[in-house]
């Protein structure tokens, strides 16, 4: 009835869908022109390196003659969530029509909406999809009654979605740990799993880990940890999802 999807890199999945939908129809420049999204940003999104807002996704979807939900459709299978399931990783929830119509309403859960709640009533054979991008979401299922066309009522399932802990909010208030925070060293030595997304971060991370491996003296470690932290200081504004994954 309710599906929660947790791909490892949701932005990559979205990018793959956009590229697949664009292929053979538009060049990148043409889609950029149709959508009003810059070709540079579009290119980043297609490669899973952008962090598109729901508004941007809506413009891209419209240019491709698609509903936003279709951009967010899972590339692979869908994992079902049981009653009271706790889902991690969300930022955007696509709610089904409250009467069980085809999903099409996009809601963006913003940090200010911590504590946000909504409910859906799903009749027999109806389903809703919850797209989990970043954050934490809890689902509560209960029996309910859904209206029938003839005015009667049918047994149905109510799905209550509640934002209990907002990692999206955490991201917005996340401050970079100070330079002496031991997590920087753990990151620099590869103890904290981290997959950089930009070519600069990948090169930097590679040199940091190999240089510390080669020379673990305090001055050298401090120098490379400082280098790593300096990158995130400069690119803090565009690195929040990465920072959340590392330090959240």
């Amino acid at each position: 009835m309710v599906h929660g999807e947790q791909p490892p890199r949701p932005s990559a999945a979205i990018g793959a869908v956009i590229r697949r939908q664009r292929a053979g129809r538009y060049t990148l420049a043409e889609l950029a022109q149709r959508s009003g999204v810059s070709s540079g940003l579009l290119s980043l999104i297609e490669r899973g390196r952008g962090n598109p807002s729901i508004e941007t996704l809506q413009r891209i979807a419209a240019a491709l003659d698609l509903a936003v939900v279709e951009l967010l459709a899972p590339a692979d299978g869908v994992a079902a969530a049981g009653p009271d399931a706790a889902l991690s990783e969300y930022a955007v929830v696509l709610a089904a029509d409250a009467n069980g119509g085809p999903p099409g309403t996009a809601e963006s859960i913003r940090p200010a909406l911590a504590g946000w709640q909504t409910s859906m009533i799903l009749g027999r054979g109806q389903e809703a999809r919850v797209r989990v991008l970043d954050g934490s979401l809890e689902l509560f299922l209960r029996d309910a009654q859904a209206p029938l066309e003839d005015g009667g009522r049918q047994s149905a399932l109510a799905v209550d979605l509640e934002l209990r802990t907002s990692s999206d909010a955490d991201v917005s208030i996340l401050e970079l740990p100070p330079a002496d925070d031991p997590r920087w060293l753990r990151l620099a030595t590869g103890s904290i799993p981290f997959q950089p997304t930009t070519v600069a971060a990948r090169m930097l991370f590679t040199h940091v880990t190999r240089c510390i491996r080669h020379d673990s003296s305090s001055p050298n470690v401090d120098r490379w940890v400082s280098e790593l932290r300096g990158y995130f200081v400069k690119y803090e504004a565009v690195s929040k999802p990465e920072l959340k994954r590392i330090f959240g």
Partner: protein
Amino acid sequence: MRSGILTNGLCSIEEASAIIESGAVVVVAGTAPLLRRLPAGSWVGGTMRYFMTADGGSQTTDRVFVTELPVDAADVTIHRYGPADLHRIVTDAPDNGFSFIVIPAESPPHVAYAARAPYYPGLFRTPIVGWIAGVNLSRLGHVVPRSINGRDRRMETDRAVVLHASLPPEKLAHIDIVNMFRAGSGDVITFPGDALAASDCLVNGEPRNLASYVTESGIDTRLPLVADYAGIDVNTSFQHVDTDAGVVTFYAPVFQGIEYRLAEPVDDYAVRFAAAVEDAGIEASFACSCILNYVYGGLEGRTIGHLTGPMTFGEIAYQLLNQTAVYLSIVDA
């Protein structure tokens, strides 16, 4: 910021001069006699005669390749650096923007940048893109590559020329690479130190002389060594194998602590490159690719997707790369 349709292709000297005199900020690649004829302006360049155009790879000595950058001349400074002060490229760079570097091949700053750039403090938070200037391949060793600062039109044989460009806060410079090569599944090669020339190495952990290993294994040295940099493949190309001296030289350094494998063979460079370019979905303000792919892959007259630009003697995306396309995009912050 400059916007609209910006020039990115081969131009006559008259066309290039008009673009420069219009106040545009440009990068120019061409032969030295042509570069000397260009007027002063906000441009940098270097010697190069091989290009990837929309019609395919070509070499020309009667036109120059002009790439107009989407920045205003007022937001640009141009510097020269020798090997001793090349690290200042980072401190001279704007807080938000990019730096475009052209270095003469085989010059002291070329060697210095290749070996030392990854150690420059702040390098990887300073978007640096550019290329190594070259010469006619049939005149290697007889003609000297040059860089040029368009502000005073002075040519350099032993200094890098760098154009630092500021961007408005709502824009970011994005530098990325396209690599058509993938690491093969063969031996793992590691090196005891950073080097542009190596004798000793470890092959699957066993000490070997690299030149002997390459020769005895029948390695196709047109294929680069490939290393995994946290999810991207980075190439280092073979320059020469001297079996008598037991030394292998490279076009970019190998680094201690990084594992290298020989690249998988490529049947058709143009097809593979075009697929990689398409896969990357590039919309670049500037791009360049490697002369080695041009030569090894027989790219004359063949396109590599929609990617155009000079075919250079080395590509720079933060650090020096080989047999790789690098590109610069200006994106919304």
